[in-house]
């Protein structure tokens, strides 16, 4: 069974599914993530110690370093990237990391921008289907 949660704007096209990891805090790939393990290394983050690998990573928007693109690319190279990213506002720095990952490694990290109302419906542990081609977001009961 799958139920539609809402729609959003496709930033990086692609379809992917996985368990959600949700943070209410802004995130910077540089400084917050170790791309060689996929783990969040910022002790000030509410997700400290969690892995984003193969998760649908959900957080409101980016912050901080412009090295975010490279850290995302390195995470893709090390197979530690999230399977999709959902933001309220997808920063160009993050989108660029995904575009380059497609060019260089032929791998896609679909990205979807959703309204705040939709963002608040998402919880860690939900199993989500992200359709960043049609711009739709679904919750799945069975997988």
């Amino acid at each position, binding site marked *: 069974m799958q139920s539609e949660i809402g729609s959003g704007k496709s930033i990086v096209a692609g379809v992917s599914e996985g368990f959600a990891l949700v943070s209410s805090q802004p995130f910077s790939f540089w400084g917050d993530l170790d791309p060689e393990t996929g783990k969040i290394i910022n002790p*000030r983050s509410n997700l400290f110690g969690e892995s984003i690998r193969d998760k649908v990573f959900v957080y409101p928007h980016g912050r901080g370093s*412009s090295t975010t693109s490279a850290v995302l690319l390195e995470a893709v190279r090390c197979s530690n990237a999230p399977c999709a990213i959902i933001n309220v506002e997808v920063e160009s720095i993050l989108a*660029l*990391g995904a575009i380059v990952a497609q060019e260089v490694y032929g791998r896609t990290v679909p990205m979807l921008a959703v309204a705040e109302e939709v963002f608040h419906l998402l919880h860690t542990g939900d199993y989500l289907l992200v359709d960043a081609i049609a711009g739709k977001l679904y919750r799945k009961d069975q997988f």
Partner: protein
Amino acid sequence: MKLTDEEQGMIDGKYGKAVAMAMSILTKLGQIYDAEEMIPISQVHIDSSAYKTIGEAGLEFAEKLADSGARFCVPTTLNPTSRDIKRWREFRIPPNFAEKSRRLEQAYLRMGAIPTWTCAPYLYGVIPRFGQQIAWAESNAITFVNSVIGARTARYGDFADICAAITGRVPKFSLHLSQNRAGEVLLKLQASSLINWDDDSIYPLIGYIVGSTAQGRIPVIDGIPNNVTSDQLKGLSAAAASSGAVALFHILGVTPEAATYQDAFQGKEPLQIINIGEEELLKARQDLSTVEEGKIDLVIIGCPHASLPEVEQLVQVLAGRKVCQEVDLWVQTNRTVYYWLEQTDLLNSLNFSGIKVITDTCIFSWPLDNWDFQLLVTNSAKFAHYAPSMLQTQVVFGNLEKCVEAAVKGEVRRS
């Protein structure tokens, strides 16, 4: 997207594979953000220059481009690399790591970059003018150049910077457009006994609050004295770009697009007015230090890279004292400043006090496996923000006087 014949030719491979890939990446970026066309830019600052942060993936990308004969077509400056190029052994950088760093440096130099190796490219070197369309990466530099100089760049990251340098183009979007540069929220500094404008740590503190309260909107700050220096604005910009995604701020009566309230908001009203008072200042000060006291290992000055006046100030505060035996004090800067230090008596003074000057790089840009640092002290809010996660250490934030006291005594005490 509407492309000129030349731009279409770039995508079609008329100018080689590297240009085609770079243009294809940039037009995809433009399509995402609904840019109608590309615009020419006249200089680039690359932040994909540290091997430690861009990793094997980044090295592959840069070498592939350089091997294919790619050349930068506009003046292109470089952020710090992953080693002090001349004295990396002194800083115990592992040789195999230094070699990877050397390869990345060579890749950029082969493409025609200028070896500035600094995160403060707005201080000395190839400095853009007001209104100039540029493509800069490195969050603190983006914020400074947009806000303080008034040149125009979006928040570019790694790879977009390289692609812009290869094509001389970026999408016409974001802060390249006048209408996207209007202030959105007004941040009013409330008069308070906690604000002492003679204490430099007030600027990074305010920047830190600005970054976290702006939440992606363009802040207009009211209440900063108009005799604020470039170095103080450097600390403020770096802090705002660490705690938030701030790429542009205005300061009423100070920065060039905010001579008046009308100018700053482009005739519109702010979406929100936020007061910044004692509570916020106390909280920011608290958040930036992970402990209040203890024996220290290292003091870091120069994040972003120190200017010459900042080093002069450090020497003044030291007043001939020496750094405690068990402690290091490192000043991070670029070769330009180092050259001036050599020409004056300042380098001798630093050497006498037992201070090391690092050039070309910074402590975030190489592995510290051969050091044992537990507690660091700094006057940079940016450094204090990133040190606990990037270096896995404790950190104390304070003004220059506090940093020097800590270095001389080997410890910080609750103030």
